[in-house]
């Protein structure tokens, strides 16, 4: 089961993902991110503090947007990954392509610094 909430904070669009991202629920995450891009959001932050589990389908979603964010010159940051989820990203090597930090403040700081 997945629960996705969206909110804006200081010009930063935060997508909070709770629960499990598996083959069926990954579509919701995909839609949330693609909506953000369409609306022209420049700073997208994914709150992964309540993310319990991510399958290869979910990883595929993140992976597919790397290029899009680079092309549109937007910032895409993940924060709050628990140990297990962070490990998954590391094994796959996604941590070398995605910006992953620990807390929301760090994420905000990162974006603001870059701006």
């Amino acid at each position, binding site marked *: 089961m997945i629960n996705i909430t969206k909110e804006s904070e200081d010009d930063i669009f935060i997508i909070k993902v709770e629960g499990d991202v598996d083959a069926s629920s990954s579509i919701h995450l995909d839609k949330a991110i693609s909506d953000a891009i369409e609306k022209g959001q420049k700073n997208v932050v994914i709150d992964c503090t309540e993310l319990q589990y991510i399958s290869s*389908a979910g990883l595929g979603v993140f992976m597919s947007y790397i290029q899009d964010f680079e092309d549109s010159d937007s910032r895409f940051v993940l924060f709050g990954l628990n140990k297990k989820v962070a490990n998954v990203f590391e094994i796959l*090597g*996604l941590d070398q392509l995605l910006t992953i930090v620990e807390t929301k403040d760090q994420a905000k700081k990162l974006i603001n610094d870059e701006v």
Partner: protein
Amino acid sequence: MLVCYLTGMSKFFRLYISSVFTSEAFRSHAGWVGLLLLNLLIVVSLRNQIISPKVSSWVPQLVLNLYLLVAYVYGQLKIKAVERYDFMQLIWKMLLFGFVSTCFSFFLESVLYLFSGSAFAFSSFISNVFYLCSLLLISTYLIVLLIAYKRLILYEKSKVLLIVWRIFEYSLIAGMVLGVFNIRIQSFLYDGFLVGLIGMGVVLSVNLKWVGYLDFSQKCRSLLMLAGIAGFLSYFCFFIYIYSEDKGIYLNLADNIFVLALLAFCLFYSLLSGVVLFFNLPTSSVYEKKLQEIKGFQKLNRKSQNEESKETLLAALLENALSSIDADSGWVELKEQAGEVLITGEKLEEEELNSILEGIKRNNLKKVFAADFSNPAGEEYFTGSIAHSLWRSVLVVPLTIQESHAGLLVLLKDIEGGFNKDAIEVVKTYADHACVSVENMYLMQEALQNERYKEELAIARRVQRSLLPEQLEHNKSFDLAVYSESTDEVGGDYYDSYKVNEHQFVLIIGDVAGHGTSAAFAMSQLKGVFHSLVPLGFPAREFVVRVNDALSKCLGKAIFITLTYVIIDTDEEQVKLVRAGHCPALYFRKKEKDFLAFESRGMGIGILRDSGFAQHLEENRIKYEAGDLLVLYTDGLTECKDNGREEFGMERLREVVKINADKDVTEIRNAIIDELTTFAGKGGVNDDLTVLIVKFN
């Protein structure tokens, strides 16, 4: 004499029981006739004895009643419970029997009358004998008739009815017993008992349900037959009455309560049945119509089970609807799944069809053919009058298939207001029935389609299994064991080996993101790329980069593949390993009894689809020693969850490997799989699973 008689009776009794059970019609009939003659003989001889009053007076009565009892039991066994279609047969047999008895009795009386002048006739003996014959005929006939009527009355029995009937039977038998004591008819108690019996018989006579099951012609014939039976019974009444005051007759029927009650009952039932049959003649057509409707449903049912064609089904629906409500014409239209309309008409030309539609439209009944029926809360049918030269009223019933409006059944009559509520109900039921049949047809087609899909998947599984090698390449320096199972029919795991030369071997293990059919396609692409690139002898890192280049063009947007590529050089005793985003391999050192941790960086295939990929790969080199183990696996192993949703994990894997490290590869592999299966429990492993173990010698 009495003893002889009794033993003779019991012998005959046994004979009849046995003959009935062997159901030899001729033998039993012969026995029956034999009994009759024997009784005749014995009663006559007894009667002779009466002249010298040594024998008590109740013996003849006893004998007579015993005979009646035997006849009753025999009749019960002989005339079995009647089936619906045998009513006519039963009544016909009763008529015949009555006719024979009456003729015979009449014959005897005529003989007596003819010789009325001579001394022969006046002999008390002769008249008694003749009377006795008639007596036996009448009483036997009445008993047989009683049993026949019992079958009719109890055709549809209820508990209460059965109880009342039993009381009636036992009372009759009680009457028989009373008869033995030869009480005179004037006694008050006697009268009361007789009236009681007759009363019970009348009450039971109202059970005439069997009448409803006959059609018109059967009712007429039954009426005539029952009239005949009533006639014969009237003759018997007359006969008894004539002789009732005759003192010369010893065993007078008029004193026999049993026979009298029975006669009254049979006569009453025959007359009542006749009257009821007569008054039911007009209603039989309605009943027959209902029966026809039911048969119509049966026919529809059978058609839908046998024929596949929708046309035949619709034609049957139209035929049934037309005949059941006497409609004159009509048609059925059904929207096919493809969008065309299927029309089946009865006695209608196309021009007529259009003129009828015109007539309907002219009467502003446009909504008949509009989307009104699509609304489930709307009308369930439509009936009205139309302006047309031939047809005056129309009934339109919508056909609903899989909860959407799919067609119409239109019926026409040449009189105004020709469709009453009852007719509409019947047609609606037919239409519903036909719709269910069509739905079933669709479901059957879907099911067949599913079967085809399942077969295709089974074929895919076989093909994919063939892509995984049976034997893995190796030399004396190392041994291999592998296990691979997909969770669906097809899966995304891949492993392979390649012999470069006598001392260099390549191993690869790969895992496509996800599982199922899409993963299986990518897996076979990987195999193709592997086999085309591996003979070219690239070093490990370059090989993986080239794989990424090749597959980047083929893989879907969010698809990636993780793999581990291993080159074993047995001369240099070295293992070179590149981990492309795959779960880290285990390396067990025999001497130190520990596991090496692979520090190398890696990235999955398809994640970075340009030249930037290469920099994310690192190569590991290990010098192996005898007894060392290299364990390659896919994440189906470590991520397998047990009932408590805990993962198998690296720790458990390391444990199992360590414990079994000294065994040979096959045993180690089996140990791992066993441990995993036990851990997974009822849920099983829900992902593609592959384990490949290398043991260095």
